[in-house]
């Protein structure tokens, strides 16, 4: 497996070693004496002089390409200060150092002092609040895409005046959704409009809530920018969870960028992987008896047979039947139930779960091989999977 060179891809996320804040400064504060290394993104200030930043670029999860507009400012083009029109969409990074909320959040998360407050402030700006990729957390979140853990309180509407220690997002603006989970597809505006999500496959693909329904399409404002990169911008039904998740990913990305891989692994382990999640409650079976029969046929087991193990109170108001499922002499599963049918179904589910929810024990992760004299990566064996499709 070839290692992804994240440090090279995301070099723009790292502040300069001498003054971490200098690179994160707003265009409006840049004087001409500061070397213009990263002032301009790919948006073109010349062609659209009155364009506000949040109207200018698509919030792209991909790392921003290297800048090549270094020489433009010296040519006497209008400075960004002249172009500023109205309030900034998110707080100025220079306010980060004076925010008590931000310093408290930094300390509460036990972040290293190598991570500057400006980076943490940037991690709190969702692409829906500020679409400029240099001032929102899309790129940091792309670097640190991992599971989530919320921190902040209910956010105020985004804008320049907001305390930089608060999470900022706008439910009516497009944002960035990180999808790292197999077949779960983002609920785009188009899919909400054209797909009811009621079909069987739609319930799986568009399963944005526990019932697999994506909800009715909301009437949404027109896209602010019509360019080819932004037409697939994502309007979410519920923007808050995505904003929180993006913030968490951005913090992990910031830890990775400023403190390295081991620190990021420790951060993820201590904050996310120690949380408790019961895997056996993560799925439900529609036709468990049928699926168990197919499973036994596939594995060359004898056909499953249900037997009544024990019962009590058959004629009473609250009977209990204990049903066991046997394949030959092997007992596959067992469950109690108030009637024979539901006990049979529950026993089938138990049998299926005991088959599928095995744990391979302690297996490593691919990044274990990055250390010196590490053994070659041997992936864990994964079952051939579902049998009815």
């Amino acid at each position, binding site marked *: 497996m070839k290692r992804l060179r994240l440090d090279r891809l995301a070099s723009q996320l790292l502040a300069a070693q001498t003054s971490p804040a200098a690179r994160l400064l707003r265009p409006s504060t840049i004087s001409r004496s500061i070397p213009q290394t990263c002032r301009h993104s790919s948006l073109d200030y010349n062609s659209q002089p009155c364009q506000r930043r949040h109207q200018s670029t698509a919030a792209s999860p991909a790392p921003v390409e290297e800048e090549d507009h270094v020489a433009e400012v010296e040519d006497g083009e209008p400075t960004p200060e002249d172009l500023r029109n109205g309030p900034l969409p998110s707080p100025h990074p220079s306010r980060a150092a004076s925010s008590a909320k931000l310093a408290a959040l930094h300390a*509460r998360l036990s972040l290293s002092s190598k991570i500057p407050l400006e980076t943490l402030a940037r991690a709190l700006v969702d692409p829906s609040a500020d679409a400029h990729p240099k001032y929102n957390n899309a790129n940091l979140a792309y670097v640190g895409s991992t599971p989530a853990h919320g921190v902040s*309180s209910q956010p105020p509407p985004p804008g320049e005046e907001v305390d930089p220690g608060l999470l900022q997002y706008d439910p009516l603006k497009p944002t960035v959704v990180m999808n790292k989970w197999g077949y779960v597809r983002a609920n785009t505006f188009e899919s909400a409009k054209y797909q009811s999500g009621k079909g069987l496959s739609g319930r799986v693909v568009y399963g944005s809530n*526990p019932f697999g329904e994506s909800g009715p399409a909301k009437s949404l404002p027109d896209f602010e920018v019509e360019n080819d990169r932004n037409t697939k911008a994502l309007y979410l039904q519920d923007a808050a969870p995505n904003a929180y998740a993006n913030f968490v990913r951005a913090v992990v990305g910031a830890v990775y960028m400023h403190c390295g891989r081991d620190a990021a692994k420790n951060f993820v382990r201590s904050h996310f992987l120690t949380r408790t999640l019961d895997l056996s409650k993560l799925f439900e079976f529609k036709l*468990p008896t049928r699926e168990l029969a197919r499973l036994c046929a596939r594995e060359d087991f004898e056909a499953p047979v249900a037997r009544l193990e024990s019962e009590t109170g058959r004629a009473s108001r609250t009977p209990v039947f204990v049903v066991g499922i046997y394949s030959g002499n092997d007992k596959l599963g067992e469950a109690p139930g108030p009637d024979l049918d539901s006990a049979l179904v529950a026993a089938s589910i138990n049998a299926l779960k005991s088959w599928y929810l095995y744990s391979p024990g302690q297996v490593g992760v691919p990044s274990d091989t990055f250390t010196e004299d590490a053994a070659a990566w041997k992936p864990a064996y994964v079952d051939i999977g579902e049998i009815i499709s």
Partner: protein
Amino acid sequence: MTIRALERVSVGQNGIGSFILQCKRLDIHYCDHSGSSRGMNAFIKTHLSKFAQTHPAIEFAVSPRPRKHPVMIGHYINGRQKSICVANMEPSQILKKAELLRDASGDKVKRVNKPVTSINESVRGVWSPYHGNGMAV
């Protein structure tokens, strides 16, 4: 497709893996003139800077509240608040109250009458009357 995925949120237990202080902000209100604020004013002058230095995870906000008793209000991650009126208290007593607000989780005070509270399944399992040979009465 007979398997449907269900959404679950993992349960975090603070202190397992990482510890996050639940008190995120402490509001400190005082009055310049009232006698009930004398202890609070002394607390702000003598104890508060050291207390704030040792607790960087808490945001401190000191503001006057003229003609009112001095109060301390703790704001917690779960969105709740806890406020304590510290009128006529000595600075050392107020420090105790500040530590109380720092250590609180923000939840409502609950009666704990079980020696162990756990979200893990019992190792031994739950006794079943439907298994085994039963008990002769």
